[in-house]
């Protein structure tokens, strides 16, 4: 019998074995396919555009021309629907057929021409955001001035309006696109749990001891685990982003971010797998670390900037790069700092994972 193998042959043997075992784990394969199918279906089911039009119901006599002018000047943003009576308008607002309603009194036109004050009722749904409520009030004032023939007291010339960054007016990022980082991150989490389970069973069943009683070193085992974990997570994330068109105009930047994300979750898998007593324990440990890491992916779903503490989470760089490149057209210069921060976290997490697994191997 001819014997004698190189480090590379040993790493390749462990790599091949780990890949075989990972894809023979029925639960892992089932969840991976399920996540892929559900996310892709969800992406294609969700609307591809954000409807920015506000539908306003109006009741009032003699204001048709003024309303027509207003509709024309706000085309795409305002859809005015006329109602025959105050009761019809009230019912339409209650039934959510319109976002808001403006009920002009019957003598509104005459009183306005005569310079008398009159009361206009604005009907709002309780869930209406404050900015729309404010818009309704402004609209009433504008209508009053338009009907009365007086100009608005405040002039807002177009040349003073400055948009910082890409002007996305009328092209808001739809929810399905905002969900892309979350899809990618959940796929990475799935892979981390699968890998963590594999590591936990290796430690618990003491197969790691059997490997270490051969010429294989702990370095070989760790190298193979990192390569398999990162490779599988990276591949899955690429597949999901291809299916949901998540690479945007800078695919290379997204690929680098995904690769770093895959390395990071592999580090988490090493920590969770070393600490877990079984698959359930591994899942618990993994979730304990990965759920906080998913927060940045959830944060982008809501308007406004992320809280400062969200920005220090290890996964923030990944989500930041993905959303800014695919939706806002960010390039290498804008992505450099989040990518560097993400790299730093990757190194730290993989180092901790390596130390924990090495220690566990020695104790087993």
């Amino acid at each position, binding site marked *: *019998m*001819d*014997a*004698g*193998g*190189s480090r590379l*042959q*040993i790493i*390749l*043997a*462990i790599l*091949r*074995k780990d890949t*075989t*075992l990972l894809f*023979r*784990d029925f639960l892992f394969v089932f969840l991976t396919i399920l996540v892929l199918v559900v996310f892709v279906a969800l992406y294609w089911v969700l609307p591809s555009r954000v409807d920015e039009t506000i539908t306003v119901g109006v009741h009032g006599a003699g204001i048709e021309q003024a309303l027509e002018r207003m509709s024309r000047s706000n085309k795409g943003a305002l859809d005015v629907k006329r109602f025959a009576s105050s009761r019809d308008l009230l019912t339409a607002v209650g039934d959510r057929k319109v976002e808001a309603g403006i009920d002009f009194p019957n003598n509104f036109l005459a009183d306005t021409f005569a310079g008398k004050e009159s009361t206009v009722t604005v009907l709002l749904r309780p869930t209406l955001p404050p900015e729309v409520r404010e818009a309704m009030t402004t609209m009433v004032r504008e209508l009053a001035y338009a009907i009365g023939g007086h100009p608005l007291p405040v002039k807002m010339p177009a040349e003073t309006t400055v948009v910082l960054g890409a002007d996305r007016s009328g092209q808001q990022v739809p929810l399905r696109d905002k969900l892309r980082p979350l899809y990618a991150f959940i796929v990475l989490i799935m892979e981390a749990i699968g890998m963590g389970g594999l590591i936990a069973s290796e430690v618990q*069943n*003491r*197969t790691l*001891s*059997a*490997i*270490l*009683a*051969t*010429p*294989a*070193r702990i370095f070989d085992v760790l190298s193979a685990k990192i390569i398999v974990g990162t490779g599988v997570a990276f591949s899955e994330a690429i597949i999901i982003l291809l299916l949901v068109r998540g690479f945007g105009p800078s695919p290379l930047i997204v690929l680098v971010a995904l690769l770093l994300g895959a390395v990071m979750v592999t580090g988490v898998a090493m920590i969770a797998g070393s600490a877990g007593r079984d698959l359930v324990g591994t899942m618990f440990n993994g979730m304990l670390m990965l759920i906080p890491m998913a927060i940045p992916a959830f944060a982008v779903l809501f308007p406004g900037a992320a809280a400062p503490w969200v920005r220090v989470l290890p996964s923030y760089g990944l989500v930041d790069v993905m959303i800014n490149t695919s939706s806002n057209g960010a390039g290498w210069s804008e992505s450099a700092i989040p990518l560097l921060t993400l790299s730093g976290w990757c190194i730290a997490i993989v180092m901790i994972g390596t130390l924990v697994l090495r220690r566990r191997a*020695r104790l087993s």
Partner: protein
Amino acid sequence: MDESAIKVRNLRFSYGDAVAVDDINFEVDRGKIFGFLGPNGAGKSTTIKLLIGMLPLQQGEIELLGMSIGSQNHKIRSRIGVCFEEKNLYLQMTAGENLEFFARLFGVRRFSPTALLRRVGLDERSNERVKNYSKGMRQRLMVARALVNEPDLLFLDEPTDGLDPVSSQAVRTIIEEEAERGAAVLLTTHDMFEADQLSDRVAFINEGKIVATDSPEELKLKYGRRSVRIKTRRDGTIDEEVVGLDSNEAGDRLKAAAANPALMTIHTEEATLEDIFIQLTGRGLA
């Protein structure tokens, strides 16, 4: 070539304050089977872990196949085979895949698991996943795995644990064949019959110390009593008498027994290794 496959000198190891191995010394020659006997927690597993380099050396020296443990661990490991007490196999892989994986780790080229699986009687189920194997089948696969690299040194920890008598005998035959091939075998077992049958030399370990080392025959001569047990039947009742062979009247007693028409049987009374262990340590092996 040095005949010693294992040389252990003043080996000591402790987990914190608890001393697991306390200044032990022994040697095992190539082609010989060395029985390492002791109760649970006596220090057997720690000694094996030290021997295969899975625990760091704290004190003492270990030389395997002429190489020092500590500095040449990886070279040594390519020439050893280990059968662990735990059935640490990959359950989701087939028997053949398990053996092929370990053969690759040892860098064994042109490896075919069939012959090895045939040796342990598993060749017909080589393509079945190990999770479907019985405890005994897994144990036989463990033995086969320890042999993938044709080791010069075999560490076998309870290799017949959970096996039926026929399978146990098959594994014992393999152990003897490996020794005949020239491999040194370090065997730990609770089965005193097995240790007695297989071992060229045995060591008793208790509370981390080796209390006796010799061939089973020498130990029996040294610590056992030379005697015969005579059974006679008189009026339906059976009487037993033990006659010490070293006593002055032994010859006359044996002659008288042989002439007695009521004689049923005469058996030599040989001490077992377990009797000797109890005699030396005051405790059993279980």
